[in-house]
């Protein structure tokens, strides 16, 4: 089931945990990059691949929850599976509320860890695809002229050509031409497709 290109970052100050997790995750087909501290991990250049982070909660210096906060502030959306030597409820609630994928207490069963990593990767993949298509939609929308963009907003708001012409102070015929160019430039066949594309690009529909 695992994705051979997927990366698992392991951040734990305990050498024996890093080593054993490395073995386990490699046996499941992952690429593993292990770090002894949060700072060491942050010095690693950002890779574009599908990745997740297996993160120890209690570490000297910068701890797991602080690293989670730091990554969120830096807009790095890597899904996190927390592991902890001493799990208390307030800590796990805090981690989950801040968007953690999972929270496992040491010692954990390999099955549980691998399932959590699988879910984290699925989420990372989804997010990657979503962000890829959103990028594509935004690039296509960027091809429109300002006037065509104005017409587009009116169309996705569900207005008729006559209403658009009145609103923009142009003839109905001119609007029809603009509208044809928008559909052509964005490579869509129907208004429904057009609406979906705009949603992907993050345009708010009124």
């Amino acid at each position, binding site marked *: 089931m695992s994705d051979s290109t997927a990366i698992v970052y392991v951040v734990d*100050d*305990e050498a*024996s*945990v890093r*080593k*054993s*997790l490395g*073995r*386990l995750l*490699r*046996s*499941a087909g992952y690429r593993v990059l292990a770090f002894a501290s949060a700072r060491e991990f942050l010095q690693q250049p950002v890779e574009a691949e599908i990745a997740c982070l297996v993160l120890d909660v*209690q*570490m*000297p*210096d910068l*701890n797991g929850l602080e690293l989670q906060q730091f990554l969120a502030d830096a807009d790095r959306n890597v899904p996190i599976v927390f*592991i902890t*030597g*001493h799990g*208390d409820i307030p800590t796990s609630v805090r981690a989950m509320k801040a968007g953690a994928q999972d929270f496992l*207490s*040491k*010692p*954990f*069963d*390999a099955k549980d*860890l691998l399932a959590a990593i699988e879910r984290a990767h699925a989420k990372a993949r989804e997010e990657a695809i979503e962000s890829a298509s959103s990028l594509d939609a935004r690039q296509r929308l960027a091809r429109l002229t300002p006037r065509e963009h104005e017409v587009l907003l009116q169309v996705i708001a569900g207005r008729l050509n006559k209403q658009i012409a009145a609103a923009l102070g142009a003839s109905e015929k001119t609007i029809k031409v603009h509208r044809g160019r928008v559909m052509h430039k964005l490579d869509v066949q129907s208004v429904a497709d057009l609406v979906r594309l705009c949603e992907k690009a993050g345009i708010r529909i009124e």
Partner: protein
Amino acid sequence: MLPANVLFDTALRQSLQSVPDLDCSSEFLDEVDFPTGYRERLLEFLRVKYVEKPPDVLVAFGSRSLDFCLQVRPQLFPDVPIVFAGLGRESPGEPERQGRVTGIRATFDGPGTLHMALRLHPHTREVFVVRGEAPIDTAAAALGWSTFRPGDFRATFHFLERHPLQQLLQRLSELPPNSLVIDLALSGSDDGPAVPAREAVESMARVSQAPMYAAFDTYLGQGLLGTVTTSMQTIGHETGEQVAEILASRGTDRLPGVRTLEAIPIFDGRQLRRWGIRKKHLPPGSQVRFEEPSFWRQHLALVIVSSGLFLLQSGLILALVLQGRSRRRAQREAQRRRQELEHMTRVATMGELTASLAHEINQPLAAILSNAQAAQRLLAAGGVDAAEIGDILADIAADDLRAGEVIRRMRALLRKGDADPTTLDVNDLVAEVIGLLRGEMILQNVSLALDLAPGLHPIHGDRVQLQQVLLNLMVNALDALKDTTASNRKVVVRTATPEGGFVRVEVEDAGAGVPADKLESVFDPFVTTKPHGMGLGLAICRSIILAHGGRIGSSNNPAGGATFWFTLPALMEAKR
């Protein structure tokens, strides 16, 4: 005089049993019987013996002992309060006028004894008073007898000398009817074969044709009928109370005033039956002893008498043996209580550290499980790499030992039992305690700096007790850092060999420090700077370190925070 000493000493110690941390030692002066030069040697002996541990209070039993104490105090124990005891109400002098002297005056009511005896035996015509010759007897004769006028009585008085004893016994066996004997002698007999006082009294009572009374209760039980006196036990007990009072108000200059104890009539129940005196005729408030002579008591008396005879020349040894026994019992009891308390605080400390200990054990457990499951997956996938499986198994074994070690250390600290002193390396102790606290430091985000002196001298001590001291100081240091900023969350543990043959250990934190008014008292029981502290941890640390012959203390650092330190005597000859 010796049995009186023992009675007094035992009662004194009993009443002091409730005072914690008290070491009571007795010195028998015995000057009466020893040649010149003895006093100089005795002074030197006392000086050497108490130079390290000067006493808080001196108790002087008897007037000679008081004289001795007053004489040597300026040289040996300046300003140490003296509590005298065993002086009669009427013995001359006012020792309390000398600075820092108080005490207990007893009532040895010789005339009262005589009056009581005459009331109980109204047909008495002749009274025989036995006097001793030893200096101590002359002193005793003065006690309460200064106002004695034979002419005030209807009876005729005869004075008999205790020495020689054979002659005295002869006289006593021939006493006419309606006689009384009052024994004022205190000492034994040293004419011919020497006889201790106890034995002498017993022989006298055995042959006496008349009831015998005495001015003291020391030999009641040896055949004397009764006395009117303050009992030696009461004197010992009251002296103990006064000593406890002085100890409790240490630091102030006030001493309790001299207390005078009343005399009460005391009788031997067996002698009352022998002389046909009914209890309803006794004066009100009388105390009757030996009413039910038990088999045990009869045998005890025999044992004491015969050993007293045997040890005639060196009664000192008898006293020390008796004393040593009761002291050892008290010490054992105190030690048992201390162990209980130590154990209790260890359990409490470990309770505070459960999160940390769980963390320390779960780390290797997590590594073991991941390694084992990785190996299972590798085996299931086929194409087994034996070398890799070997590595995995080696790591599993190492992690298992590590988890076991944490549990072993924990169990050792929770162990209950006697101290087991061995030769220890202080740096190892530090490493072991840090092993238990590592998780706690990570949880609290505290960094640790170790500054351990290489090649430290080993020390001799109990591993668990010393670990407890370090654990306590370190947990305190971590607690002190709870409210500090992240940059101050640092603990330094330092070991060093300063001069003077002591290994020194310091635990330094950068917390708020100890409030100035508590720096002195923080090692006292029930003094704490923590809102939920029991105030026992440091008190126990101190008793452990003192028991190891070391010292413990604390100071605030110039840059903030506190340093707690202790020293332990180094084993010099075994330097590694």
